């Protein structure tokens, strides 16, 4: 794990610091590699494989052809034996404290490792989900805009019909209004003419009555008393004759 850390930090330091930039971009300035910034090559999803937490898998693969599966373990055992027997590493009190601290560390990593990793993954997932949400909202907004646009285009096609209908409407209104006014005008004229007619009738009737009254008055005035008596006697004689005739007709 520590070796991995050193490699990682060395990698990260490569791009930073006063000499780092020169190292990374040296090849780029000399155009010796075909590196380009886009598209960025995909990053590995997980870290390098390690065995027993610290030893990279590459060492095992490296030693496999020559020494097989047990090679690295033999190497480890031999190294420890050499260090202990030659007293290059002396077992003293620090060894005990080393055993204690490493057991605590290993216990902690084994117990809390997966939950901490899941927590870190959760943080990353939330970050990704937020960005995804923004992207999804933008996409749905744009598709909605496309649909609205299509609907507007469809509406434009029916615009001519709409205008025709409106035009018909207006024409009908105008026609109705015109006819109304025509009727009104007709009625008004008729009323006036009726009035004139009534006036004429009235005038004629008045003239007639006046004339009749005048004729009657003049006739009645012209009848003398003598004439009146003669006419009454004649009327009586006529009446008697008529009575006689009717009597005769009745008996017959």
């Amino acid at each position: 794990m520590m070796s991995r850390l050193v490699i990682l930090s060395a990698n990260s330091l490569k791009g930073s610091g006063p000499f780092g930039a020169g190292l990374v971009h040296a090849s780029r300035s000399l155009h010796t590699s075909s590196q380009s910034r886009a598209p960025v090559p995909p990053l590995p999803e997980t870290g390098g494989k390690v065995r027993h937490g610290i030893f990279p898998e590459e060492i095992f693969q490296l030693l496999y052809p020559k020494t097989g599966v047990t090679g690295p373990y033999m190497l480890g055992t031999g190294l420890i034996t050499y260090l202990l027997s030659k007293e290059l590493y002396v077992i003293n009190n620090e060894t005990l404290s080393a055993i204690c601290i490493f057991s605590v560390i290993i216990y902690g990593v084994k117990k809390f490792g997966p939950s901490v990793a899941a927590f870190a993954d959760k943080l990353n997932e939330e970050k990704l989900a937020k960005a995804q949400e923004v992207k999804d909202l933008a996409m749905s907004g744009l598709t909605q805009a496309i649909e609205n646009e299509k609907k507007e285009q469809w509406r434009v096609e029916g615009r001519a019909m709409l205008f025709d209908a409106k035009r018909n409407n207006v024409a009908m209104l105008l026609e109705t209004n015109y006819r109304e006014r025509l009727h009104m005008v007709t009625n008004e004229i008729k009323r006036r003419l009726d009035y004139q007619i009534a006036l004429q009738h009235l005038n004629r009737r008045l003239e007639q009555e006046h004339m009749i009254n005048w004729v009657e008055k003049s006739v009645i005035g012209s009848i003398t008393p003598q004439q009146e008596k003669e006419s009454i006697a004649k009327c009586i004689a006529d009446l008697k004759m008529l009575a006689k005739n009717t009597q005769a007709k009745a008996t017959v």
Partner: protein
Amino acid sequence: MTMNLFNQFLSPTFLGLPLIAIALMAPCLLYPSPAPWWQSNRWTTLQNWFIGSFIKQILSPINTKGHSWALLLATLMVFLITLNTLGLLPYTFTPTTQLSLNMAFAVPLWLATVIMGFRNSPTHALGHLLPEGTPTPLVPTLIIIESISLLIRPLALGVRLTANLTAGHLLIQLVSSAAFSLLLSQTTAASLAVGLLLLLTILEIAVAMIQAYVFVLLLSLYLQENV
């Protein structure tokens, strides 16, 4: 034996060359630098989360003017925690056991808060020297006591960190040497000592983190008073 116990606190040299610079700079190699891509790996995410939540918690009682101290406090916290916890590994040197280092952290930072307080609002800063509601006869005594407590703060900060870590390391050495020397002759006593050592190790991990946190917390409190 006494000589042996304190050897761990000697500033490391190799063939006469002081290694203290490497001891102080090396821990930063363990932390991932921010990558140019948008979604970081687990280490970087955890690091970002830790620093973010720590700063949010520590700066919440301080007003906006004091927020310019955020980077300093975060760096200090990360540095102290790293030095303390790395010092628990075997055969390592813990720079924070040196009083010189801790005083070099405590005095300038404390002095900065005090000078800032006296420069921005001197009456308010002087007012801190007298708690509210003290009876009048006690006022001179209390002012002297409060100013002594003010002046002792950097000493307390530095010595607290030094003493805690030194004591922890010494205890680990003592108990482990006791266990080691008893290992062959009286194994039961040795196993008890090993049990004690295990508990002590757990305590020391906790103390390492807590002491770093307390250092930074107290500094933020002094800052809050004076900003």
